């Protein structure tokens, strides 16, 4: 069974204090790993897809990396507007394979 574990559950940072969010996964052959951002009262918003170990993607202050067992979402010099819940999901190889989501990491950035 595919599993996704995100840590920590919650993270509080001071504005400008860089950190990383972790997503550990077990899957029978990885088709893709996805990061989403979810603001309170809204649906998740797509950030990145990573397909193979060693791959990296960047968007503004966010950089996602992937190994064979985990993914990191690095946040460089965060701002209060980066406060949100960050969701990680994996999709296994195979036709019609569904996403398995982690429980999310709630990030709060204080000014």
């Amino acid at each position, binding site marked *: 069974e595919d599993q996704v574990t995100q840590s920590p559950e919650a993270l509080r940072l001071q504005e400008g204090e860089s950190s990383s969010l972790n997503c550990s996964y077990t899957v029978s052959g990885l088709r*893709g790993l*996805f990061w*989403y951002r979810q603001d309170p*009262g*809204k*649906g*998740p*918003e*797509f950030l990145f*897809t990573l397909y193979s170990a060693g791959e990296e993607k960047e968007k503004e202050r966010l950089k996602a990396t992937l190994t064979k067992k985990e993914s990191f979402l690095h946040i460089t010099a965060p701002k209060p507007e980066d406060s949100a819940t960050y*969701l990680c*999901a994996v*999709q296994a190889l195979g036709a*019609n*394979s*569904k*996403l398995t*989501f*982690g*429980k*999310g990491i709630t990030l709060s950035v204080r000014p």
Partner: protein
Amino acid sequence: DVKVTQSSRYLVKRTGEKVFLECVQDMDHENMFWYRQDPGLGLRLIYFSYDVKMKEKGDIPEGYSVSREKKERFSLILESASTNQTSMYLCASSSTGGFEKLFFGSGTQLSVL
């Protein structure tokens, strides 16, 4: 931008009622999905559809059904609402092979009393 619109932001229903949750997307996406989101459990897939009149069960289909009569509209039906179906319901759509880059609606917070 893709827009996924869910008909209600908040909904309060009684136990035993039949409940319809509606979702419309405006980007001609083939794939549509219904998830529920509960604290401590994350997002769980209820049903999805790859084409009009097609549906497939997700991880937790019990107590739910779906309808997709038109490409842009995907309805979730609670045949007889129960208190354990109180949850945030999220609709999503995608244009690619399946689960790539899902676009989510804002959600419907359903309370069953």
